[in-house]
């Protein structure tokens, strides 16, 4: 048993990089040998946790799709694994002025069907993502006014307003380039016949069973990919997924719950990978109406929660207590507001009394039915109960309960759920806290907050942006607009022959570095 635990790092990223630079240090830390020469060939068998919603990046919707989509689609922009800082992918970008973004595409990239991945193709994709009736990602590109071909390998975007979140957005669905030839030929039938420019090309997809991809011979990055193919066996029950790896039918299972860690460790010949992610388990609050329109009640909830105990009890310690919607390793983390709500049930009671609830109050809360969600709910119920907040649970499937909370019905005061994270923090705050945002159940927002969210997209300089995010986080935390609980670590089980796997902060595995030893 070998453990790669990137979770307990108190190291800063540059320290990590310095460590990784030395081969000796790599060996000493027991890190995988991604620095060494990787062997080519072989088919990786992966237990995937969910059937994709679609294999067309524009029409799909589930956050679990990405790991599969990335095998077939390369993105215009990519990111740094540890910090999610954007870096060039198939294109380099620049902002000659705040309302113009220029994309310079690398030469010689071809889609799986031979269509050149050039300026025309990029324009086609961006226009489709922006305007197609079936596109789910129109809001991502709402700041784009027009996309012009300004050279065989250059596209210039004219923006309605400055938007420096665009590089990160183009590392997500909006930046996954699909073959225009394929889209034109298929019309509305694009969901199941993907053609991209990624390292592997599509072979077959049987719903809820299997997805197979195989090497794209003309892949643009020399020497890549290492694997001849990947077979995703879709197993939604995560204990079953892990058993399939223990039994040797799959080589890898990802996105496992923390409670399975002892099982992985007990198994011989398995490697455990755990690493921080942006996945934030939190209480969503509907603060548009009583009683949560009262700041003191919202603050009381935040004081009542014991986040350290929560991480121990529900994540077996495999997580980071959450003080805001970004983890401490993130470049936009504001440490000044991190200590605002220490665990203090007495303070919570006092705030409730001030708010007029001397004898405590009862809140309705929505939750899901899976084992992990139920356990989280129990811990929250207990912690809030000690501060005099009695919660009344309604449980159901994710689709059912989250729609009741976020969509038109507006049931429940609270929802125990999670924020899965986005490549750019402005997406996180825009989608979760802005006025009329879907994940802001009350649909109300302080105009100052809305203004800052826009402002966070003006500067290209990360330090300047971090300053704006600091202000945003101050508003969300001071006003207790949510009750973040914990950042869940990613937990993966790998068979020993899987080499070179690197987890990322987004918590959605990429397979580009993997080889089979």
């Amino acid at each position: 048993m070998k453990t790669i635990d990137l979770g307990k790092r108190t190291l800063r990223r540059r320290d990590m990089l310095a460590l990784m630079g030395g081969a000796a240090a790599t060996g000493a830390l027991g890190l995988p040998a991604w620095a060494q020469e990787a062997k080519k060939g072989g088919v990786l068998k992966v237990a995937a946790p969910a059937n994709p919603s679609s294999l067309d990046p524009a029409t799909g919707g589930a956050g679990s799709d990405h790991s599969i989509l990335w095998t077939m689609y390369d993105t215009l922009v990519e990111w740094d694994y540890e910090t999610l800082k954007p870096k060039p992918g198939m294109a380099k970008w620049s902002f000659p002025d705040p309302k113009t973004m220029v994309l310079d595409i690398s030469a010689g990239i071809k889609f799986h069907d031979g269509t050149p991945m050039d300026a025309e193709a990029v324009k086609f994709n961006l226009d489709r993502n922006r305007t197609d009736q079936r596109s789910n990602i129109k809001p991502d590109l709402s700041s784009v006014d027009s996309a012009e071909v300004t050279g065989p390998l250059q596209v210039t975007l004219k923006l309605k307003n400055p938007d420096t979140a665009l590089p990160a957005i183009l590392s997500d669905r909006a930046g996954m380039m699909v073959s225009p030839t394929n889209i034109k030929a298929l019309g509305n039938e694009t969901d199941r016949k993907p053609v991209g420019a990624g390292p592997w090309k599509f072979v077959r997809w049987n719903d809820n069973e299997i997805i197979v991809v195989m090497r794209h011979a003309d892949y643009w990055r020399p020497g890549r990919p290492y694997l001849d193919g990947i077979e995703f066996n879709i197993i939604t029950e995560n204990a079953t997924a892990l058993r399939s790896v223990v039994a040797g039918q799959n080589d890898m299972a990802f996105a496992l719950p923390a409670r399975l860690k002892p099982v992985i460790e007990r198994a011989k010949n398995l490697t455990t990978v755990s690493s921080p992610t942006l996945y934030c388990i939190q209480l969503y609050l509907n603060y548009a109406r009583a009683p949560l329109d009262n700041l003191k009640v919202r603050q009381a909830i935040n004081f009542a929660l014991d986040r350290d105990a929560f991480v121990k009890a529900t994540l077996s310690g495999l997580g980071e207590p959450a003080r805001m919607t970004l983890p401490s390793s993130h470049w936009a983390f504001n440490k000044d507001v991190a200590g605002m709500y220490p665990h203090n049930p007495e303070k919570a009671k006092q705030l409730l009394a001030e708010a007029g609830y001397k004898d405590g109050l009862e809140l309705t809360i929505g939750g899901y039915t899976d084992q992990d969600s139920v356990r989280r709910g129990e811990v929250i119920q207990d912690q809030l109960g000690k501060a005099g907040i009695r919660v009344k649970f309604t449980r159901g499937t994710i689709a059912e309960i989250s729609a009741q909370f976020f969509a038109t019905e507006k049931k429940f005061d609270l929802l125990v759920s999670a924020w899965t994270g986005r490549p750019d923090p402005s997406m996180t705050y825009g989608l979760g806290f802005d006025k009329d945002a879907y994940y802001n159940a009350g649909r109300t927002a302080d105009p100052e907050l809305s203004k800052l969210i826009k402002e966070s997209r003006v500067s290209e300089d990360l330090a300047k942006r971090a300053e704006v995010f600091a202000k945003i986080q101050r508003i969300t935390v001071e006003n207790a607009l949510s009750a973040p609980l914990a950042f869940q670590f990613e937990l993966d089980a790998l068979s020993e022959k899987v080499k070179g796997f690197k987890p990322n902060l987004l918590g959605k595995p990429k397979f580009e570095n993997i080889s089979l030893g």
Partner: protein
Amino acid sequence: MIAAPSSGVNLDMFNSARLRIIGRRLLQAIPVIVLSTFIVFGLLKLVPGDVAVTLAGDNASDQRIAEIRELYGLNQPFLLQYGSWLWKAMHGDLSNSLISNESVLTSIQRCLPHTLLIVALALLTALIIGIPLGIAAATKPGSWIDSIVMAIASLGVAVPNFWLGMLLVAFFSLQLNWLPATGAASLMKDPWAALSHAILPALALASGGIAEVARQLRSSLVEILSSQQVRTLHAKGLPPSSILWRHGLKNVSVNLLTVVSLLANRMLAATVVVEAVFAIPGMGGLIVNAAMHRDFPVVQGVVFAMVLIVVTLNLLTDIFYSVLDPRISS
């Protein structure tokens, strides 16, 4: 109308009375299918949650969700939605999954064989093990064999099959590495792999069946063997084995058939859980996933197929009843 009587090997399976029964049963199946799909459709629409939210994706906005409803016809009146599904289904088009866009017929054609294989195997196991146990217990009622068999039977009924499934995996797959822990294979393409994948789930599924077959067989056989008719046979000097096989078992065969047919229906339902434990891409997994996301064309398609199977099974049972006991057909 009637096929020429065959040379009398098996009476004639399809005399006119029987054909009439078959025809009537098939006609009865139509309202059953319509009613069951209608009820399921209604349930899906009654419970909160909406496929439009799933379809709109992670970055959904209220506006986008409304747009999706429009795009997929989800805002049409309930009866119109059901009606258009039924109309298409009557023309052999089971539509596509709203979420993944796979044709429902394709999904069913792929999933059904996996489910049928484990149910058939489980049924076979239940009979192969249950019948000898039942006979052993019935021929020596009150003996230690009887006690043991009845203890096994009680245990078999009490043990939940998903738990047994996990134990079987832990022992046969993870410890001994004899059989695969998860998945399924096509019986057509690779019969051996298909069987090796199906053995453990079938065993897990069969445990209750073994118990039931043994118990039912024992009680009805005990009743027959202690009847006056059998006493007469003993008096006539027939050997016990001949009494058991020619008179005893023949008399309980109708009971056994009832048990088997009920069992088959129940096992089909139980696959929902067992398939999850073994990650078998069968009908159970298909309908659970679809129901979770309110993907109603898939749910409807699966219900449609399952009702068809159950109706067919019941029809076959009825036919066999009248073959085994000619009094029934009149």
